[in-house]
């Protein structure tokens, strides 16, 4: 088991390396000049040249790449080109916000989506099913920033339960929860929509299997048929979707963070891209690539717990 995990993590290294190299080149091929972003549009050429030299972006791209790799191996991810602060510090400051948001959204999505999906499958073609299907379709097709503004209008402006600026201090648990609630619900709804649909279709498939009929025929109570026989087998695709969903969550969290004014990796990435902050961009990509590798690994390990046959293979 441990050997398997280690092997998987080691295999991630070439992936990370490839991602980094691609990001490194792409970011620099893009037109745009970090020195101009920092100094503004009135800066003299002399000042721009001096700034490019100070940032080290005037060197040939090959030399920059070698410097970058050597420093990265040493654990030095450089300083943000724009703010001048260490990249590691920039990422570390916003990471708790992103983890809070992502984990809560996934949990919320699973807690709403799985029961709703099962229920809807069991009551196929009744009003319950129709409501669940239409609701999940709405959840999927609603852009995250629109639902975010609707949530703000209802709960922050009308009811005044939550703040618009959801950047509460991490040290104060009440503040932390208050500013987490709306963004997490916003992402959680989309997540729940996905999970509902996958759970429903997966359950419908399993419920039609022979062994379910057999279980029913031999007199197993309905509750056990559903939860022990059907649900456990239907869960594998759901776990896959939850894992894959992390990627989608990253995309949606950018918009959610911007509308709710929440610090986070998504916002950090957009600002780095706008300002051509190459070093921050590189650091972010490592974090993202690593997160995806990690979640894939966790997903695979979860398969083993749900279905012992997977573990034996």
């Amino acid at each position, binding site marked *: 088991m441990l050997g398997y995990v280690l092997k998987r993590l080691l295999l991630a290294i070439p992936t990370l390396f490839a991602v980094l190299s691609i990001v490194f080149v792409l970011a620099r091929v893009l037109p745009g000049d970090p020195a101009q972003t920092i100094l503004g549009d*009135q800066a003299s*050429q002399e000042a721009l040249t001096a700034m490019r030299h100070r940032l080290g972006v005037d060197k040939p791209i090959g030399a920059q790449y070698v410097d970058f790799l050597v420093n990265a191996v040493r654990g030095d991810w450089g300083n943000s080109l724009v*703010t001048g602060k260490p990249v590691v510090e920039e990422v570390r400051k916003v990471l708790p916000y992103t983890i809070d948001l992502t984990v809560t959204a996934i949990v919320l999505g699973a*807690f709403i989506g799985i029961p709703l999906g099962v229920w809807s499958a069991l009551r196929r073609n009744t009003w319950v099913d129709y409501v669940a299907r239409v609701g999940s379709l709405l959840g999927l097709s609603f852009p995250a920033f629109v639902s975010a*503004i609707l949530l703000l209008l209802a709960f922050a402006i009308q009811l005044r339960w939550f703040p618009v*600026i959801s950047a509460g201090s991490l040290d104060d648990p009440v503040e932390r929860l208050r500013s987490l609630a709306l963004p997490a619900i916003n992402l959680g709804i989309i997540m729940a929509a996905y999970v509902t649909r996958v759970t429903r279709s997966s359950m419908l498939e399993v419920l039609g299997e022979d062994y379910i009929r057999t279980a029913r025929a031999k007199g197993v109570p309905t509750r056990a048929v559903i939860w022990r026989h059907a649900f456990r087998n239907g869960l594998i695709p759901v776990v896959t979707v939850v894992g894959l969903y992390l990627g989608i969550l990253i995309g949606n969290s950018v918009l959610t963070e911007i*509308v709710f004014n929440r610090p986070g990796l998504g916002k950090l990435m957009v600002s780095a891209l706008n300002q051509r902050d190459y070093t921050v961009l590189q650091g972010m990509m490592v974090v993202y690539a690593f997160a995806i590798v990690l979640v894939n690994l966790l997903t695979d390990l979860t398969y083993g717990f749900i279905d012992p046959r997977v573990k034996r293979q």
Partner: protein
Amino acid sequence: MARLIHWAAALATALLVVALAQPALAAKTVLNVGMAAIDAGRLDPHLSATTPDKALFNWMFNGLVRMKQGTMNPDPALMEGDLAESWKSSPDGKQWTFNLRKGVQCHHGYGEFTADDVVYSLARSADPKRSAFSSDFKDFDKVEAVDKYTVRITLKNQVPSLLGLLINYQGGNMVCKKAAEEMGEKFTQKPIGTGPFMFGEYKSKESVTLLANPQYFRGKPKLEKIVYRYILSDASRDLAFTSGEIDLTYGKQDQTWVDRMKKEKDTIVDVFDPGELSVLYLNVEKPPLNDIRVRQAIAHAIDRNQIWQFKGKDTARPAQSIVPIGYLGHSADVPLLPHDPEKAKALLKEAGYPNGLTIKIIHTNLPGMLSMMEVTQAQLRKVGITLDMEVVEHATYHANIRKDMSPIVHYSAARFPVADVYLTQFYHSRSIVGTPTAVTNFSHCNDADAEIDAARVEPDVAKQKALWKTAQQKLMAKVCGIPVYEQPQIWARRATLDFGFPLKGSLSLGPVVDENTRFTQ
């Protein structure tokens, strides 16, 4: 299932309890500001010239002199003392002596601000390695500390707008020597000046907090704290204003926004100078624009009034010249080609394009700028000119227009309100893009170099204005740039927030907040 429902109920209750535990309302000595930006840049007044950063610098730094609070008149006679109490110049105007206020303290205990700090600060502003504004100080010969409270500036030649370089703006912001030397590169993380507010805390992608400077030489500020929040989304900035989380917000240069905000309860919309002038710069060297008839045709095709109506009565005004209205040296007596589609068509025919022509340009995706260009595109189509617009992201646009990749460049800018700055940066041959001394001359025009250079050192104000007028006339006759409209700065605030002076203009492009700014309730 039942268990799940219990769980859900428990979670909902927990959220409700948390929601009801609202924190006490902030006392009204804290000013919350919403700025349309994703983050701060390098917080060094000599490095950053971005709009979001400049507003902050204005609250933290002093110059030797200043314009009257809330105005932006560059007339030297109207300048007030800031860190300097008095000043005088030699008869030839080449030597200036400034007497400093005594007892001014640098923020966070960095000691008294003296002549040494002025010498250091101006040397820093003039050094291209440490400043983006070094070229402003190229006529400075030397800056010396005569004694602890006296500074002497010697110039290589006369600089009529010298005082303008010494106000609390860009290179004129005075930093404290001890702090800047001690911190080096880290100065951007804790900039130290002498202004009414001092640096408190920076939260990445979130906010900058400034604290009242208790030792401020004009008296302790009435506000205790300013939280300057970076709120990129227009919609959430508006919502945060409505919910009371911010008291002063960056506005949209959009008439519907202004109309809506004016209807909000207890809200004041501030519209103030400078206007950002939108100009279409035509590259006079690139065919087909190297033919003046084509350039004239484009100018005649543009309907300024229609664009003004599109932009909005309060949020724009039609441009009059290539130097913005209100700038020292602006002249309305210039050949501004009127809207005349028939003449445009005739000119095109004369230039050999009876069936019209297509021009491929690059434009930014910034919505405010793009919408105006789309109107222009429609107007040009009526005379047979097809604008083939490649819309790119803003940083790409800035990079590509500086490589001469777009024969027509739509650029919108406000500068120090003296004609010299605008004319030099946009029309002097030294500033042509692609050259080693490039700034933002996209048209490649060089027809008024002599007038621009002569005006800069002309001591007689009347003669100087005449030179600037001739420069504007020459450049407009050649259709180097087509001025379209000007957009003033727009902010909204709570009616209870009193700046302490009428806000008519602000060079920093942001509202001016000082020791007198307070909430009336």
